[in-house]
């Protein structure tokens, strides 16, 4: 490390972080999508590219939900308030990946066969939970703007956005119900969610 680095005033670093944090994270959030596009262009999605695409988007949808939910605990644990500014953006990326995942199912897997999709939603537990998660996330995305937050008022907005918790749990159940055997992956997501809830509760009650 450069010795002069320590000489830079703390406020200066703050300003730089403030300026660069959001653009850098924004680009980082696009990387999984870019990677999917590269693999698709190379024909690198295997023998069943439709399934591979939907699974990949679903994996990232769940990861982004977890990352969005981790923003506040990370801020509370580190005391770095700058991180809090990322919450809305990461949350909206989570919604974007969820939407792409569902579009993959509707448009690629079922090719807009609404009758089959309707039957799936009613009959298949994992699709029911997946659609429930999507449904809960839609109002959160719609009310994500400053204007909407003002219109709703802070307390009501916060209450509405508590929906992210049942949405995240529904997402994990969706994953768990989809898998045939070997439940390690959804279990890990469930444990991470539980840990994140735990941090919030601990900080709140302490």
């Amino acid at each position, binding site marked *: 490390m450069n010795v002069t680095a320590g000489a830079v005033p703390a406020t200066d670093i703050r300003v730089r972080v403030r300026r660069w944090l959001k653009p850098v994270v924004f680009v980082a959030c696009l990387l999984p999508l870019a990677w999917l596009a590269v693999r698709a262009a190379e024909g690198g999605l*295997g*023998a*069943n590219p*439709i*399934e591979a695409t939907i699974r990949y988007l679903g994996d990232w949808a769940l990861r982004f939900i977890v990352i969005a939910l981790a923003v506040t605990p990370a801020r509370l644990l580190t005391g770095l308030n700058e991180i809090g500014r990322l919450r809305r953006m990461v949350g909206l990326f989570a919604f974007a990946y969820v939407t792409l995942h569902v579009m993959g199912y509707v448009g*690629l*897997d*079922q*090719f807009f*066969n609404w009758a*089959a999709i309707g*039957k*799936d939603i009613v*009959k*298949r*537990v*994992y699709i029911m939970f997946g659609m429930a998660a999507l449904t809960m996330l839609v109002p959160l995305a719609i009310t994500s703007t400053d204007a909407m937050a003002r219109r709703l008022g802070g307390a009501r907005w916060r209450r509405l956005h508590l929906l992210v918790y049942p949405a995240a749990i529904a997402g994990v159940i969706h994953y768990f*119900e*989809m898998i*045939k*055997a*070997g*439940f*390690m992956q959804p279990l890990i997501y469930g444990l991470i969610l539980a840990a994140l809830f735990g941090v919030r509760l601990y900080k709140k009650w302490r």
Partner: protein
Amino acid sequence: MLIRQKKSSDAASHEITPEHVYVNRRQFIEASGLIAGGLLASGMASPAAAALMPKEGKFQGVKEGYHKLGAKDKQTPFEAVTSYNNFYEFGLDKEDPAANAGAFKPLPWQVKVDGLCANPGTLNFDDFLKPHTLEDRVYRHRCVEAWSMVIPWVGIPLAELVKRFEPQGSAKYVAFETVMRPAEMPGQRNAQILPWPYVEGLRLDEAMNPLAMLAVGIYGVPLPNQNGAPLRLVTPWKYGFKGIKSIVRMTFTERQPKNTWNVSNGREYGFFANVNPKVDHPRWSQATERRIGDFFRRETLMFNGYEEEVGQLYAGMDLAKNY
């Protein structure tokens, strides 16, 4: 979870197999019998026709077998057949078997034949194959996950093997078992995945059906490890999970074998596992399937399109209950 339960009155036998097909079933049986008989005779006359694993490259002396396909059935490329597999002994993802099966040693191999039969024993793989003549057969392959392929297999009619070991009158089923080698099969180190070793079985009349075969190869070459080397079951009218891989044991038995997926999750996987577009898996519809390589789904056919050949096996059975 929802399981569509049809009443027994819903599946009358005439729905399962049209009468004219049932009446004409002997044509198929006789035809295959003639072929099998002819092959056996020629096999005896010329020892070169004995089924043997090739040192390298393709199998020799392979006879042309069943090739009946639909107009929309094109063979799935070798690359796809060998890179997209469900073989949980090597991992849960479709790419895992191809990635993790490299350390598996399919040869030397032995098959133990036991249970209610006149000729039990443990046979070296060459001795297991030698009395038979290999056949090329092209079958549709339908996975319970609603994807499908068309695969050219190399193998032996299962009926020939059953006859050779002479099951006793009391034998009603034949059970198969996969090799147990946790050192070479990473999935087997995790008992949470499935209760190992993998077990499958057929009713004896199913095993005697001319379509049932034990495969040793695809596309003319020995089975790659990820496809179940060196010996696997192929029953094209059933979902793929019936096609037990890397078989080391064949047991004739009075009782219905406890097949692994049925033991693991009996509400979703039955013993028969016949392809049936009308009986949904609790978690997905079986009405349509995606043929690997296609964009659009296609209708799934009753018994995967082999109703003529196998429908009579299930005449009178309620296929919604016996799924």
